[in-house]
């Protein structure tokens, strides 16, 4: 009985998708294969986002592709992917777990994004307009509001499923990017991708990442993500999905209070797949203790100020 009640109390409709709970697997984490996405879904994720796929196969940057730092994790994977033509089966396998599978896609132009969205079948698309470490892709387009709008518009015209736009925090004004996505017809924005960062080996002076630059995720970026979600949720009419440094149910609650209708978890998967049940269980117990619903919680911070 308890289980049924908990499940129902966490189910939401966000960004055009019905989710059994608001805790999703973030893009780029365990998303290369259908089997690992399926495993995340079976472990309790309310939805899963794939590794970003583009129009041609890419092997990614040379290693090191990650560096652990005290406050988080740096990565520069370099968008490795087998191309959308070789990825449909992975999505099908992931879908067999019964939760929405959101395909993260990237391209260097609106036309390239649209071409992928026309062919690839998924429950929704998340546009990677925010990867900070791949030349000609990600934030190199995503930091320009007009490009965010035109790419979003092109994918909306090409796709018959919801379109989410993942925003970069590496900008003076993320709100401008969110408004551009909304003008383009996005069904939701996802905030935030990693912060552009680097680390240097003091024994030799070599930048540690093979690509020199990478993206910082994990604990360090959570306050930045909370601020971005708060700003976006305060102004946008479309939903905001919060991501960045969530590693506990308390973090998830904070992000939802900032205005996120759902959250994504990435770097915290280092601790294993148990993180999904840990977070959803924690949210359920919190709601019960406070006699609140997810709707009561969502954006509470904005109503307090």
């Amino acid at each position, binding site marked *: 009985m308890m289980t049924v009640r908990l499940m129902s109390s966490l189910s939401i409709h966000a960004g055009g998708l019905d989710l059994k709970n608001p805790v999703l697997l973030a893009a780029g984490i365990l998303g290369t294969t259908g089997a690992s996405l399926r*495993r995340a879904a079976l472990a309790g994720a309310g939805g899963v986002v794939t590794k970003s796929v583009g129009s041609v196969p890419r092997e990614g940057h*040379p290693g090191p592709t990650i560096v652990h730092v005290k406050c988080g994790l740096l990565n520069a994977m370099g968008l490795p992917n087998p191309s959308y033509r070789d990825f449909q089966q992975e999505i099908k396998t992931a879908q067999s777990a019964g939760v929405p599978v959101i395909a993260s896609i990237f391209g260097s132009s609106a036309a390239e994004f649209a071409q992928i969205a026309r062919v690839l079948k998924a429950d929704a698309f998340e546009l990677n307009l925010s990867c900070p470490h791949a030349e000609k892709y990600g934030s190199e387009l995503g930091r320009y509001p007009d490009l965010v709008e035109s790419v979003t518009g092109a994918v909306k015209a090409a796709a018959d499923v919801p379109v989410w736009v993942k925003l970069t925090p590496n900008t003076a004004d993320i709100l401008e990017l969110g408004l551009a996505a909304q003008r383009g017809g996005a069904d939701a924005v996802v905030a935030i991708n990693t912060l552009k960062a680097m680390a240097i*080996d003091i*024994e*030799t002076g070599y930048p540690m990442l093979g690509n020199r630059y990478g993206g910082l995720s994990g604990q360090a970026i959570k306050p930045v993500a909370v601020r971005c979600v708060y700003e976006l949720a305060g102004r946008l009419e479309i939903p905001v999905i919060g991501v960045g440094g969530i590693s506990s149910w308390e973090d998830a609650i904070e992000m939802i209070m900032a205005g996120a209708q759902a959250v994504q978890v990435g770097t915290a998967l280092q601790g294993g797949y148990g993180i999904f049940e840990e977070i959803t269980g924690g949210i359920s117990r919190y709601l019960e203790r406070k006699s609140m619903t997810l709707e009561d919680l969502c954006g509470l911070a904005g109503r307090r100020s």
Partner: protein
Amino acid sequence: MRPINCIIEEVRSEAPLIRTYRLDRNLNPAPGQYLMLWIRGVDEIPMSFSGPDTITVQSVGVATQAIFRMGAGSEVGLRGPLGNGFALKGNKILLIGGGVGTAPLAFLGEVAKKADIGVTSLLGFRSRDDMIFQDRFESLGETIITTDDGSYGIRGRASAGLKELNLFNYDQIYLCGPEMMMSDIISRTAEHAANTQACINRYFKCAAGICGSCCLDPDGVRVCVEGPVLLADRLLDSEFGRYKRGPSGAKGPCRG
């Protein structure tokens, strides 16, 4: 963890394309565990330990060729030991290795012998010139060697040596070598799969269990953190021996 700086203390040639590098410190690895070796300015690649302070490298690509250009005194970065190594079980064990895959098994056998565990080894190589660690294995106990070309020992693959052994005599079987060789052995000895530990190889990028590049079908086992040593039981109905994913995530054939 951030990579630590290590100095190569000694380089030893084992075979024309295989060298052993001794590092300036013992990282207390369990046999079967690995480290991520950062060749600065080139790449970072996984390497099994062939001893508490050694790795044994076969020159196969850009990164390993860069290692071959390094001598004593060269510096490398490393993270490790990583992953799950072999678990020692029972009083009598069998090691089955192929090529450079014999390296972690030599390390394991030495740890086992110190614990008074009886060690038998079955080793396969392409030819006499490619043989490595013969002395190390022979000092542990009975050692059967096969070569593909018959230039030493039994002619044929490692599986050709299986008929010399009664596998029921061993409490545990440990396996490491080229994928097709391991997959061949596992399918021929399927009734022992619950007692067979295999050290396997997949394309590692993060080595932290998050990027997903090494996940095995159909269950999504993250080889970099749940392996690289896995029970053969978990491999029997998996992609192992059928295909493996490359750096882009695309499926390709298993070789070797």
